[in-house]
Every structure is written in structure tokens, then in C-alpha cells.
């Protein structure tokens, strides 16, 4: 349950950010994993290096002693630990965003297919580069990043706290995206998706929009990567293979393009399948390899969804700006603010329930 919700949160952020790109702006980003990976590595190296430098420790980057020492420090300094957590997340956002901006800038002038291929190969190149890059631990990756709530002894409580803070970050990202797309900016994004040339003829600076969207979306993927690293405590280049990108694509396709709630729903479905496969792993008499089963189910799901609901489980909706009220249509539209508040209160209640559930001793 906890592992599912952490996974769900991290992938929701990724799905929302991909949705901003492909769903709203029509940028086919097949290199999602690169920015996810950059975020993860920035967070891990910043975390570990800052601990090592602040306390002037001469431990090697990779080793059992380092892990133990860092764990002790983190447990003794809660404030520092949490600061490192948040600073690395913001750093991941900025660095991944800048990478998104830079790497796609020369490719934006070419067609969507070329952009997709370029970014796809960038993701692979980055993984191979990191496998040989010593300061981030090369092929073995980085280990020993302490848990952000390492000073709490109860392990379930620790994970629950992590899930809650990750959820909070996700809610911030979700509401930001919702507000962004339900504005004239979102409308311009959609116009670029529909017809770039026509958008250009209506005075929209298409290149600038694309670069900005890529900055934001890549930054969000970086945040997701940072969360992953704080969740698992270790990071290795081989976590960021291309198939991760296609997982995220599957989530967006199943959930619904250009609908953030759809993206979250899609994430819930796909991560649920993933966890189900993990549970099946424990059943010895199960005739199939659950990992293969997982891919099969995902594939069948995509085909079924595309056949019966081609625009996804939750299809695209018309954006809600005050314009509709003004001309006397769509008075039922609730403002984004109110919807955001409703969602926050709902999530808050959910968190309380989760905490209660753990206090009762789980299951």
C-alpha cells in the first residue's frame, strides 16, 4: 500500500508533466526518462556531497561505512536533513528544467518526429554517460542518501511521512498545472498543438511557448526523480532505461491526453498493475513470470482503451476561463481555486485516514 502510493505519487508527477508536453502542447517527448534521471542524480549527489562537505568527512563515495555514517548524521540532525531534502528537490527542478530548455532548444525547429528521436537518444546517451561518470558513482550509482525523515524510529511512520510530503508536492504540481492550462496560456498551448502555423499567424511565439513548457515539464520530471531517490535511498544509471518513458506514455494514453486528472487516473491504473505483478511474484505456483505478465496487461489495456475510448478514460475537456461566464455560457463552471481547495481538503482527509490506518497497526 505504502510502496504503491509512493510509486503512484512519483509517476503522477511524471504523467502530469508529460501531459503538459504531449497532451496540451503537442511536443512528443520520448526522452522523459532523461530529465527524470537528471533530477534523481542531482538530488542524490547534492544530498551526499553536501553531507560529506559540511561534516568534512573523508569517506569514499561508495561504501558501507559511508551509508552508516550518513545515516547517523541524518538521524542526529533532523533540521539539516529536511533542509537538504527540500533544497535538493528545488535544485533538481531547476537543473532538469534548464536541461529540458537547452537540449530541446536546437531541436524545436524541426518536426515532432525528429524532436522525439533526438530526445530519445539523449536519454540513452545520458544513461551511458552516467555509467562512466565517477563523481556520481559510475555504473554502481550512488548509495547512502539518508531518508529525509531518518530521525524517526518507527519505519512505517517514516514512510507515511514521506508519502505525505511527496503527495503534498504532487498536489502543488497538479494545481499549478491545472491553473496553467485553464488560462489564456493553456489556450495558446492547445493552439500550438492543433496547428503550429496558424498559431504563429495569430501572433503566438511558438518557439518560446515550447521552450517554456519544456522547462516546466522537465523541471517537474526532475522533482519526480528527486523524490524517487529519497524514497529508495539509492540511484543507479540502470534505473533510467528507455522503457520508463514508455510507461509514462502508457499512463497518459490510458488516462486521457490533455486531461490532468486523466493522467493521474492512468498512473493509478498502471502503477496498480505494477504492484499487482510484484505481489504475484510471491506466489510460487504462478505459471507465468509476473514481470512479463505486467507488460502484457499494460499492452492489452492500451489496445482496449484505444479501441473503445480513443481519447482515454477521461477525455479532454474544454478549458474553463471566465470568458464562458461572460458570454452567458458554462455558468456551472467552478473556478479553479475552488476545485483546488476541494482537492486539498480531500487529500488531507485521505492522509488522516492513512495515518489512522497505520496507528491501528496496518491492515
Amino acid at each position, binding site marked *: 500500500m505504502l510502496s504503491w502510493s509512493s510509486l503512484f505519487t512519483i509517476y503522477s508527477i511524471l504523467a502530469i508533466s508529460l501531459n503538459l508536453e504531449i497532451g496540451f502542447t503537442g511536443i512528443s517527448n520520448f526522452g522523459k526518462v532523461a530529465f527524470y534521471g537528471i533530477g534523481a542524480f542531482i538530488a542524490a549527489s547534492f544530498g551526499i556531497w553536501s553531507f560529506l562537505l559540511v561534516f568534512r568527512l573523508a569517506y569514499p563515495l561508495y561504501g558501507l561505512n559511508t551509508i552508516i555514517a550518513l545515516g547517523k548524521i541524518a538521524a542526529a540532525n533532523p533540521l539539516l536533513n529536511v533542509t537538504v531534502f527540500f533544497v535538493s528537490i528545488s535544485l533538481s527542478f531547476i537543473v532538469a528544467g534548464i536541461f529540458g530548455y537547452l537540449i530541446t532548444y536546437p531541436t524545436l525547429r524541426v518536426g515532432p518526429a525528429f524532436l522525439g528521436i533526438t530526445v530519445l537518444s539523449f536519454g540513452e546517451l545520458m544513461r551511458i554517460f552516467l555509467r562512466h561518470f565517477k563523481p556520481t558513482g559510475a555504473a554502481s550509482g550512488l548509495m547512502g542518501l539518508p531518508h529525509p525523515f531518518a530521525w524517526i524510529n518507527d519505519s512505517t511512520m517514516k514512510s507515511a511521512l514521506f508519502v505525505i510530503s511527496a503527495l503534498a508536492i504532487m498536489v502543488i504540481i497538479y494545481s*499549478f498545472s491545472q*491553473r*496553467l492550462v485553464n*488560462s*489564456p*496560456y*493553456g*489556450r*495558446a498551448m*492547445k*493552439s500550438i498543438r*492543433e*496547428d503550429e*502555423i*496558424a*498559431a*504563429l*499567424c*495569430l*501572433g*503566438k*511565439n*511558438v518557439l518560446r511557448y515550447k521552450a*517554456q513548457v519544456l522547462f*516546466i515539464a522537465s523541471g517537474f520530471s526532475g522533482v519526480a526523480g528527486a523524490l524517487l531517490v529519497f524514497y529508495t535511498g539509492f540511484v543507479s544509471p540502470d534505473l533510467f532505461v528507455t522503457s520508463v518513458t514508455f510507461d509514462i506514455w502508457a499512463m497518459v494514453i490510458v488516462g486521457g491526453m490533455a486531461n490532468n486528472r486523466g493522467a493521474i487516473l492512468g498512473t493509478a491504473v498502471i502503477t496498480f498493475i505494477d504492484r499487482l505483478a510484484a505481489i504475484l511474484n510471491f506466489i510460487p505456483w504462478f505459471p507465468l513470470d509476473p514481470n512479463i505478465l505486467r507488460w502484457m496487461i499494460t499492452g492489452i489495456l492500451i489496445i482496449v482503451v484505444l479501441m473503445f475510448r480513443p481519447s482515454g478514460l477521461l477525455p*479532454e475537456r*474544454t*478549458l474553463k*476561463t*471566465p*470568458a*464562458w461566464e*461572460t*458570454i452567458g*455560457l*458554462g455558468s456551472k463552471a467552478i*473556478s*479553479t*481555486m475552488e476545485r483546488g481547495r476541494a482537492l486539498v481538503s480531500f487529500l488531507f482527509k485521505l492522509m488522516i485516514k492513512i495515518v489512522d490506518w497505520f496507528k491501528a497497526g496496518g491492515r
Partner: protein
Amino acid sequence: MSDSFLGIVGVSKRFGGVEAIKDINIEVKKGSITGLIGPNGSGKTTLFNVITGFYTPDSGEICFKGSRIDGFNPNETYTLGLARTFQSPRLFPRLTMLENLLLAPPHQMGERLIYATLEKKWDKQERAIAIDSKGVAERLLLNGIEGTLTADLSGAHMKLVETARGLMGGAQLLLMDEPAAGVLYSTAREIFDYISLLRKEYGLTFFVIEHRLDVLLDYVDYVYVLHLGKLLSEGTPEEVMKDKNVIEAYVGQS
């Protein structure tokens, strides 16, 4: 060139070895309907693309309202007040009719990234634009279909929406690429009736490409004829129709 609104002086554009347009001189007067005709492949659409900034001219100058605009990007020429429509309407199919109109006005606060999430900053402007769009939609008899996706509109409606977009954007000069292509004869006349009506009401200037000479020549003040990338003839409709070169270009040598 004092009353010239759009002035094109000696503009050429070549694609590899092909000279698409060669040394074109055109002057569009403010408040006029100027026609641009010519057989297929004579470079009419290329000229429009050069004016709106899709192509940079190899030589020559383009002036709009007294300042040079050659070398500008399409989005820059648009904000100066130069809107265009396409041969086949380029709307945003999965957006509603209203959203298509709302996209047109330039300098929207809410289209900047820093203000986009702060609804208070752009709320007022958005509402003003919406009221504008209602007026324009009523003027062009487009009211009642605000919530329809433009993919579901009829061909004639699409053309009107494209024109409405030009009006919404505060354009002063509308470049129309075959506004009456693919519609009935009577509808074509209706469209041109609208064009001359809009010229009176909004004080707009029109520069129109059209293949239907019978319709076009009843409405325009001045016509330019392009043939094989060169300016063949110019004058009032009567003058042009008598020009031997023009007849030759259209129906061949007699």
C-alpha cells in the same frame, strides 16, 4: 507613396534555382480592397508568405504603415496589425469556436507564463475579450455555435471564423488567400458582400487573392496580375480585363 498602407518595392524570392517571385512592386492603399490574381503557380501565395514573414525576401523592401517589416517573424507582423487567412481554413479543430476567437487578440496578459497562474491578473482582460468576441460573432452571424468544436463546423462557417479571428485580433490589413474557394457562387458573393461591409464598418483594408474573377472584379478597387512570378499588369478591374497580356496569360494566345 504617401497614402500607401502596404508598400512592396522590388521584392524577389528564389527557391534554389526557381525564382518564385521577381521584382514585385505593389501598393495597397488604406481602406481599399485590392485584388491579386494570376494563373496557378504564378507566386500569389508565395508573395503572401513573404509579406507575413514566413519567408524572408532575397531583395527588396516591404513597408507597412511606414515602417519596414521585411525579415520580421509571422508573429511579429501579426502584432503590427497584419492578419492573414488561408486557402483552406486553418482553425484549431479541437478547440471550440469561442476559443478560436479568444486566441486572436495580441498582448494578452494571461498568455505570459508568469501571469498565467494568477487569475486576478488577466481576469478583467479575458472578460473584455469575451465581450468583444460576442460582438464579432453576432456581426458575422456566428452566435449560437460558441461551444462547438471547429472540427464540426461547415466549410462556410470555417471561413467566417477565420475572418472573425482577423477582426478579433485588431488587424488593420487582412490578407485573404482565396476567401471564396470551394463555396457556391451565391455564397462567394455573400462573402465578398461581407468583406465590403467590414471595410466600411471597421475601416479595414483588404488584400485578396481570388480565382473567381467574375466575383472578385465586382468588388475590388484595384487589381494586380501576377504571371510566372512577375507583375504582368495592374489597374482598375476594367483596365485589367482589357489588357491583352492578361487575356493571353489566362486563356492563351489567340
